[in-house]
């Protein structure tokens, strides 16, 4: 059976498996870890090949330097494409990178590589010790392993984890104070570098005679299909992918099937993976499958938390003394002051001249019926409203013209209505991304204790969804914010858990030295957790004061129960007002 196959074929194929694996890794880390679909990995590799072949004609550098040159040369191209990714997202990025792959492919097919057809062509020489394919393969494989290890180390740093935040939601990343642009450029630099390195290895494999047809865009996207199929964010995925691409054709050829069928196989495999919506082959293999931290039962992410996962101290009605000053903070300025905030979306006024003061050490609540503007207010304070009139200051510092991540660094922390935690991180790892400069382990552990969260080494995948929202809350506190904006943190928690959370929120200023603005639909929770309450209706403040008094106001009951016409006549009966998709009509479910 293996008559036509010699060791030589296998050795050569093994080297192919290595650089294919690197390319799969390059595409896969962008896709799996940052969520960017870039269809031009071969373009980066081509730069690497070109650099090595070019240098061969002019210098004679030792192999390590050549590989380094290939790696470095690809980086500027990576930065260029990364810059494109700052502006274009999703399908747009895929389309542009595909077109870019077409251009580079034509370039390599037309011009070839330096001195490709010239008689004076200098062949690329391997070092003596790596002349045999087998030895070269071992070296290349070691490089792949090294790259994989370095990536693995990187993924354990806060910068590496921030990539997952961008993949999950750019807003979530900005809310931690990190720059999305920095993450994307960093990811493209690393991706291009790995692909460039792969190009260097390609060049050495064929002693400088690389076939330009390898860079065809359709071949290039075949790589991406493999990356999708194997779930290539990790080294294992890359190795598996590389082996597939290199070995499968040989095996098929050996049993008499045209080797190109393997690509068809990858295509179908990718379709299946995408249809299922799960992560690709390696995500489901038993020895790769993640397991819950030892000592903790593997609670699958069930739903609403009606059965409390963690024991809850039943503290119904227990209240801390009102208005206790935050320990250690002696600031005169309000923690948060909003003056005359007006937000317009088109012709609709989402917020109209709203003013609110949040003193240090205070927990304030914000309630209101459908479309009242509560989330818009939090969006405005945290920097996600493109333009507004009015003034917002935090601890005396005006926030105008600051980007969302700059505001986060100035002490504004927030949670989101739709939970944005990452199942592949542990509780502790997730929380540490919020840390500004270095992670304060004590603070992190204290927060885990305080909120009765699962232990720091527990994967979020195994945490139930209601508790994940509390993890998000705790994460926001790691940054020691001055103001914490909570957007419906109790959604999805059971009744007992809600009460418990309310009590914990109540004591936050004392324990962690921050002021809190809480949006909630659960009026009972709000009543027990806050010192003062503001009620919004149609973008206007209709009540403000102590909870007990405000909730008795007729205006408030009317706002909820709708006996009167809205206070703001502009929002009534406008063309298309409250049409589906209008951001001011935040239909709450």
């Amino acid at each position: 059976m293996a008559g036509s196959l010699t060791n030589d074929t296998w050795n050569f194929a093994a080297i192919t498996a290595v650089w294919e694996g690197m390319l799969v890794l390059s595409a896969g880390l962008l896709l799996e870890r940052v969520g960017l679909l870039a269809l031009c990995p071969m373009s980066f590799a081509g730069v690497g090949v070109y650099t090595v072949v070019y240098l061969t004609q002019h210098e004679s550098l030792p192999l390590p330097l050549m590989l380094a040159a290939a790696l470095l040369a690809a980086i500027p191209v990576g930065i260029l494409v990364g810059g494109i990714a700052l502006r274009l997202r999703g399908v747009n990025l895929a389309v542009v990178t595909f077109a870019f792959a077409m251009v580079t492919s034509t370039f390599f097919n037309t011009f070839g590589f330096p001195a490709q057809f010239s008689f004076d062509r200098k062949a690329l020489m391997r070092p003596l010790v790596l002349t045999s394919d087998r030895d070269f393969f071992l070296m290349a494989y070691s490089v792949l392993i090294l790259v994989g290890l370095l990536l693995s180390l990187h993924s354990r740093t806060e910068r590496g984890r921030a990539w997952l935040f961008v993949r999950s939601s750019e807003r979530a990343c900005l809310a931690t104070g990190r720059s999305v642009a920095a993450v994307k450029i960093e990811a493209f630099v690393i991706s291009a570098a790995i692909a460039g390195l792969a190009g260097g290895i390609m060049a050495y494999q064929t002693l400088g005679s690389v076939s330009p047809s390898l860079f065809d865009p359709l071949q290039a996207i075949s790589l991406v299909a493999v990356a999708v199929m194997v779930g290539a964010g990790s080294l294992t995925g890359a190795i598996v992918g590389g082996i597939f691409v290199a070995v499968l054709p040989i095996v098929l050829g050996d049993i008499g099937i045209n080797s190109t069928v393997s690509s068809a196989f990858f295509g179908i495999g990718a379709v299946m993976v995408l249809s299922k919506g799960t992560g690709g082959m390696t995500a489901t293999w038993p020895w790769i499958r993640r397991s819950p931290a030892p000592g903790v039962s593997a609670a699958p992410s069930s739903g609403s938390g009606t059965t409390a996962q963690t024991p809850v101290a039943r503290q119904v009605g227990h209240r801390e003394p009102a208005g206790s000053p935050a320990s250690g903070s002696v600031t005169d300025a309000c923690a948060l002051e909003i003056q005359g905030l007006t937000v317009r979306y088109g012709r609709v006024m989402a917020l109209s001249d709203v003013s609110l003061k949040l003193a240090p050490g205070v927990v304030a609540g914000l309630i209101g019926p459908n479309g009242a503007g509560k989330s818009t207010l939090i969006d405005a304070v945290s920097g996600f409203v493109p333009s507004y009139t009015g003034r917002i200051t935090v601890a005396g510092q005006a926030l105008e013209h600051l980007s969302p991540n700059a505001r986060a660094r100035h002490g504004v922390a927030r949670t989101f209505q739709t939970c944005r935690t990452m199942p592949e991180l542990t509780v502790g790892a997730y929380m540490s991304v919020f840390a500004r400069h270095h992670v304060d382990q004590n603070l992190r552990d204290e927060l885990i204790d305080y909120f009765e969260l699962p232990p720091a080494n527990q994967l979020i995948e195994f945490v139930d969804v209601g508790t994940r929202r509390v993890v998000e809350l705790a994460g926001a506190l790691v940054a020691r914010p001055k103001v914490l904006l909570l957007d419906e943190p109790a959604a999805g928690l059971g009744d007992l858990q809600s009460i418990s959370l309310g009590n914990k929120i109540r004591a936050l200023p004392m324990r962690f030295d921050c002021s809190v603005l809480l949006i909630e639909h659960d009026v009972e929770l709000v009543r027990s957790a806050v010192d003062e309450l503001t009620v919004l209706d149609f973008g206007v403040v209709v009540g403000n004061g102590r909870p007990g008094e405000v909730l008795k106001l007729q205006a408030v009951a009317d706002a909820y129960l709708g006996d009167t016409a809205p206070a703001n006549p502009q929002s009534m009966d406008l063309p298309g007002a409250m049409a589906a998709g209008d951001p001011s009509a935040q239909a709450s479910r």
Partner: protein
Amino acid sequence: MLNQAATGLFPGGIYCLIGICLLLVYRVGAVVNFSQALAGTFAAFAVTSLTSDGLPTWFAITAGLLLGAAIAVVQGMVMARYLIEASVLVRTGVSIAMAVTLFSLSLVIFGDNPRNFPVILGGKFSVGGIELQTAAILAWALAIVCGIALGLTLSRTRLGIVLRAIAHSAPTAETLGVRTSRYVVGVWAVAGLITTFAVILIAPATGSVDAMGLLVGPAVAAVLLGGFRRIWLTVLGALGIGLAEGVTPMISNTQLAQVCDSAVPFVVIAAVLFWSQRKVSVGDIR
């Protein structure tokens, strides 16, 4: 100079046809179909197999058209059945994977050797000193007819109304009793049929699986010029791109011109997309 530009008319017409199909599939099927030209490529190669077996050309071409439409129907059914809840990005990813599959199946089954593609309409003629290919006229005539037919169907018929409704919100249409998956598969089929004809028409001039599959690149650029919405801007865009590609060889020597040719769609795509995203603000990112 005009003669040079006129050489771009034929590809331009093909980009226009494929572009209209891409636009239709995008609006109703919510996917940027990277594999649009590959079903037709597969069919075009099948046609040559049939003709080399001795079957009459018209039969082979008809069979090819049906085959192209059938492949598109299968693709549409996969989309409608398994990817209903998926985002546009995931669906586009699936179309990319399908492109890979179709591309390699074409190579496997038909090989990449040069083939005799039947020339549907050959010859050239001169109009006022400019040389035009007859096939180019056919392509443009067909493109204009398709454009008009599509426009009229969408605006005047009940079918068009339902398609526009699905394009805006398939779930809402379904709550009104519309069986959206049937319409989606139907649209894929029609797009597949037209694209197959376009690919078969240009096959003699391109020749390889690669080149034919990559017709989708300039076609996407043309659709982008129409904002992925307007039929007539797509038509004009395809005309512009075709003419630009015809003219670029004049600017520099032939080697560089080839690269410039493929750079035209890239530049158009990048420019249009950047322009379209210029107003995206921090409030829009999620």
